[in-house]
């Protein structure tokens, strides 16, 4: 890539602005080559916990089986799976969205966001047991969908393969699309690594780069591919969030009719994945050795986005709660009691506290937003909040046995108090191991992925250098940002 003539005289800004193309490439290649012992320790710990999680799942499956009747034993498993969807699977969206809007501050984390596509492989595998325990639609098997006898689903009279194959197809689609996006985006870096490395790595990277030469045509094709794959990823992701949230939570709670729920699920995914990426950015800066490439700007800008999404999260929740609470409908009151104010009150309060109050109070202040630690704490908070949200939604949904009832209000009426199906369920040791294992598995795959593909996109960083200058203006020096068409 050509260098512009102003560089030596005018680049006086943050450290990364001083680097030349060659220095950037060399430095990033060195970081990619060298992995410190701490990294391998982290991989080993994550791998160990993942193995324990798998073991816990096997024990549970051997103990209680894997069917519709044992669905209540997999509530926390479902919550962990949903958590994986709202965090890791949604993360590539950040790279897509900020590339569309041409934000320069995206450059240090866009590859890390795309690398989370690899975690999608784990999500697909983890989805199989979920599909097995999902109850059928036509419960009495008479071929007619009747309220009170069969359950409400988004599939109505069940088109062929619904919901299992449609849900799986959606998830596989989003994962394949994400992996394709990762590959397309990483091709220039792979070609560069193939040139500067030798041995097996050079051969593998050379193959994966698929003849990338860096010609104008190559770049134009890559730009087009990224735009198309990004658009598909976005649509598929919204579709998958909608399917999973409605099939595995909402439709399992009889009478719960909540039109904002799927949109809220998508929004929680956007919020939690933003939090996840801020935390990853922090780790890259403080532990990963990428300090010179990651200034305060990405944290500051991402914090503004996180604040906006957090406010929207609160607004969506309020819309849901207010409509149900004000309406005084018996079923809706029971739904509120179950998911928010009685059975899962603790999880709900933690959810509200971590997803809304902490990030809102922190990010309200520009001083906090314009720091490294402030957005990171807020990011970690929304991740925790998202986890409790998944717990309070999926655990109760998986614990309702009579999914064919017309309304959960019937359970209360029949029981004369809170019905057993609506009582809170605390996690056992195996549940804890499965949840931790699922998260550790995601971390394990992500960490290994960074050994295959560099976590920082060298070509995007180099491109960014061309568009950023510091120029004198009146008494000060100002940042000049290029915005190409």
């Amino acid at each position: 890539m050509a260098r512009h003539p102003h560089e030596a005289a005018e680049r006086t800004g943050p450290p990364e602005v001083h680097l030349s193309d060659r220095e950037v490439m060399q430095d990033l290649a060195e970081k990619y080559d060298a992995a410190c012992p701490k990294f391998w320790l982290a991989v080993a710990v994550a791998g160990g916990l993942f193995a324990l999680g798998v073991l816990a799942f096997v024990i549970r499956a051997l103990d209680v089986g894997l069917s519709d009747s044992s669905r209540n034993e997999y509530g926390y498993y479902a919550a962990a799976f949903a958590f994986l969807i709202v965090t890791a699977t949604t993360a590539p969206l950040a790279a897509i969205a900020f590339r569309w809007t041409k934000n320069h501050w995206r450059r240090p984390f866009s590859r890390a966001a795309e690398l989370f596509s690899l975690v999608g492989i784990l999500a697909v595998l983890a989805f199989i047991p979920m599909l097995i325990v999902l109850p059928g639609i036509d419960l009495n098997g008479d071929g007619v969908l009747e309220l009170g006898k069969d359950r409400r689903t988004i599939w109505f009279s069940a088109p062929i393969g619904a919901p299992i194959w449609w849900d799986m197809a959606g998830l596989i689609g989003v994962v394949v699309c994400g992996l394709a996006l990762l590959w397309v985006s990483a091709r220039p870096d792979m070609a560069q690594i193939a040139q500067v490395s030798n041995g097996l790595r050079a051969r593998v990277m050379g193959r994966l780069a698929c003849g990338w030469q860096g010609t104008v045509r190559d770049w134009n094709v890559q730009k087009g591919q990224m735009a198309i794959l990004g658009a598909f990823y976005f649509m598929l992701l919204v579709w998958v969030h909608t399917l999973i949230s409605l099939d595995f939570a909402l439709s399992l709670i009889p009478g719960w009719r909540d039109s904002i729920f799927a949109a809220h699920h998508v929004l929680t995914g956007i919020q939690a994945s933003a939090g996840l990426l801020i935390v990853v950015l922090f780790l890259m800066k403080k532990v990963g050795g990428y300090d010179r490439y990651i200034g305060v700007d990405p944290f500051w800008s991402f914090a503004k986005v996180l604040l906006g999404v957090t406010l929207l999260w609160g607004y969506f929740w309020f819309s849901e709660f207010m409509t149900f609470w004000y309406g005084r409908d018996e079923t809706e009151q029971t739904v509120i009691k179950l998911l928010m104010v009685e059975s899962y009150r603790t999880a709900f309060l933690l959810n509200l506290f971590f997803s809304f109050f902490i990030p809102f109070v922190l990010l309200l202040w520009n001083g906090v937003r314009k720091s490294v630690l402030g957005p990171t704490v807020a990011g970690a908070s929304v991740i925790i909040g998202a986890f409790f949200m998944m717990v309070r939604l999926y655990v109760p949904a998986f614990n309702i046995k009579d999914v064919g009832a017309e309304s959960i209000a019937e359970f209360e009426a029949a029981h004369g108090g809170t019905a057993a199906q609506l009582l809170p369920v605390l996690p056992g040791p195996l549940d804890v191991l499965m949840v931790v294992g699922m998260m550790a598995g995601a971390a394990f795959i992500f960490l290994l992925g960074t050994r295959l593909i560099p976590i920082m996109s060298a070509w995007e960083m180099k491109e960014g250098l061309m568009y950023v200058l510091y120029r004198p203006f009146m008494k000060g020096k100002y940042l000049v940002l290029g915005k190409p068409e």
Partner: protein
Amino acid sequence: MQEGRALADRQINRDLLHTIFTHPKWQWGLIAFFGIIVLGAMCAAGYMFNRGLGVSGLNRPVMWGFFITNFVFWIGISHAGVMLSAILRLSKAEWRRPATRAAEVLTVFSLMTAMLMPLIHAGRPWRVFYWVFPFDWARGVYPNVRSALIWDPSAVFTYLTSSTLFVYIALLPDLAVIRDRSTGIRRQIYSVLALGWRGNPRQWKLQIIAGVLLSALILPVFVSVHSIVSFDFSMAIAVKSWHSTIFPPYFVIGAVHSGVAAVVIVMAVMRWLYGWQEYIRPEHFDALGRLLVVVATGWFFFFVLEFFFGLYSLEADEIAVKDFLSAQAPWSWWFITFVGTTYFIPVGMWLFKGVRRNPGLMIIACISVNIGMWLERFLIIVPGLAQKQVMNFTYFTYAPSVVEVVIVIGTFALVCMLMLLFAKVFPLIPLYDIKEGEIARDEIQIGRRKVPAVLREE
């Protein structure tokens, strides 16, 4: 994002103030034309007040018709001001500059127009006096503060007050420019309005802080207004198809959709009427077109969820409303028109860069959006009410009367007339914002290409 040539301050003053200092006949002709339509609407409203609501098409159980549809529509249009001005100002989007003032002014005028509708709809507007000053607390004759219908005016008036303040704060530097170029009584009036603006660093600092603070404070108000309007419907569980949790964000995003489309129409008309091709350029329409694609798609997702959950309930009366709406003529034709004009036609057009950069085609696409969004409100309100439900003993379908149609047309004329009158006394494009943009523009040389760039304060 910089296609126009560099403009000198002197030229900016001359170009943007000529609407105030020159008096072409067509301007007064146009104002008179809209004035006559407004007069017609006033006569229709007067006739209705005199004869009673019987002259409208409202009848049991459809007691909300064109007037309330129009109220929701104009509240929706008002969302453009904040969307473009506050959000884009906070996010430092450069292309906002020529659009902000028109958007803010449109907000104020559409809110004023919207608030006329419930008064007209009430049939006896003078009785609002009892609403403000309840006369008989002892017998419980007072507004029920727990009703969404009471929250509505509070929210709308808060929004109107803050929007007016927002417009005024942003107008101050421009008012001083007009003051310095005026003489006589006009100079005295603008001197009072400019509040002693001299353009010193302290004043600029205060103006910027006030702008940022108002931008941030007005955002929750903006969201709350249409949310509360949606509560008018979603809190009423008796009317099937209204009680839906997605209504607040669905209404807000729909409002942003129609509001931004309305701003595009205003900008294209301004460009054509006042010859502001140097200021409102194809790149601005392009940016607004892209924004509209995102907003429209978000709206469509919400629309699908809203419609779908009516069916998901499997409740007969909910399904009956959706069936009535989408499968029974003539409602089904209106429904198809609404979906087509709100989403498929405009978004299909905006996918092409050539369309986004063409003001004429953008006007067509944006008019389509607003036709669709008006119909959307109509189709939310009337089919739900027109169904026979528990405790309905008489029920009819609804057809608007001539009186209602004239009044609704009058509201459109009123907003157009007020915009034209505003342009006669204040600049519709903020001079200082354009000048600031000229200072911030830069270019970066990359190889043989020059890439547009902007100056940013760290």
